[in-house]
């Protein structure tokens, strides 16, 4: 049997995704502090560790990395939501909405679904990444765009391109992600 070596990050990733898939949000070794963290800590990880720090090293490559990271999460969430639903889009979207709410990622609302044109637009209200952030010059939720792209890709089993066209941090009051089915 082939010995598939996993890095420590991959081992941790598997355990985190398994935890999400199980729907069990309690976590060991956090007896006093519990499973929840302040949103500003998440935003520090997202916008500093996976944002400005990555940008310092990768320059224009930073959004690609962040998008790709979000897509990995979206693919995992999609696999979870796609189980036992017999390819029913409405049920799939319902499960994704619930999952995003449970994980406090945001309130996902389908804004436009035009399958003939191959275009879907999903709103992410109360987006975890950019809530309380203002005065940016361009959309900053590449992680969420990638995540939505991964979710849609899983359902349709097609390549997709997800683009954030509105961002709360730009003053749009919501984040709108357009997904083109390719």
């Amino acid at each position, binding site marked *: 049997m082939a010995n598939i070596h996993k890095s420590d990050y991959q081992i941790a990733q598997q355990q985190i995704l398994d935890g999400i898939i199980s729907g069990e949000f309690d976590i060991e070794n956090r007896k006093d502090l519990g499973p929840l963290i302040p949103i500003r800590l998440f935003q520090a990880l997202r916008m500093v560790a996976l944002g400005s720090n990555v940008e310092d*090293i990768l320059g224009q490559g930073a*959004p690609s990395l962040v998008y790709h990271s979000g897509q990995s999460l979206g693919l995992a969430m999609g696999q979870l939501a796609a189980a036992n639903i017999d390819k029913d889009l409405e049920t799939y979207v319902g499960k994704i909405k619930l999952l995003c709410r449970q994980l406090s990622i945001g309130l996902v609302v389908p804004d436009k679904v035009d399958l003939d044109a191959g275009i879907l637009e999903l709103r992410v209200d109360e987006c975890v990444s950019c809530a309380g952030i203002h005065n940016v010059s361009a959309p900053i939720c590449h992680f969420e765009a990638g995540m939505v792209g991964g979710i849609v890709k899983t359902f349709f089993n097609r390549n997709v391109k997800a683009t954030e066209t509105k961002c709360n941090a730009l003053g749009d009051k919501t984040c709108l992600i357009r997904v083109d089915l390719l």
Partner: protein
Amino acid sequence: MSNIHLINTRKSNSGEIDSILRNLMSTQGVTAAAIVDSDGFVTHIQRDSEINTDAIGASVQVVFGAAARSAQHVGHHSTNMVICENTEGYILSTPIEAGFILAVVTQRDALLGRVRFELKETIPVLKKLFNNFLSN
């Protein structure tokens, strides 16, 4: 408020871009030629064999970005081309416009100078196409 213009080169100039990539593929040793957008998404590709386009697109942007940052740190200003020399071949990436990158994958026996020459000849043509598209 947002004033986002989607840059979808798939729906415009697509035939011309594919033709340019096919032309690059005719260079000895070239096995794939692709356009990667600023999000690391492969918008156009010509290839001899199956490639994980999601992964290669993001990787090309990340490698190019890191190389360009390194160049800035040593005062080399803008980066015109990044060449990865690998055991089995080369990956060359060159900026076009608006964060788009042209990436070419070759076999080990490709003539690097020839491939570089073809890329340098191709980039102005692509820049013109992209500029026309972006200004419309």
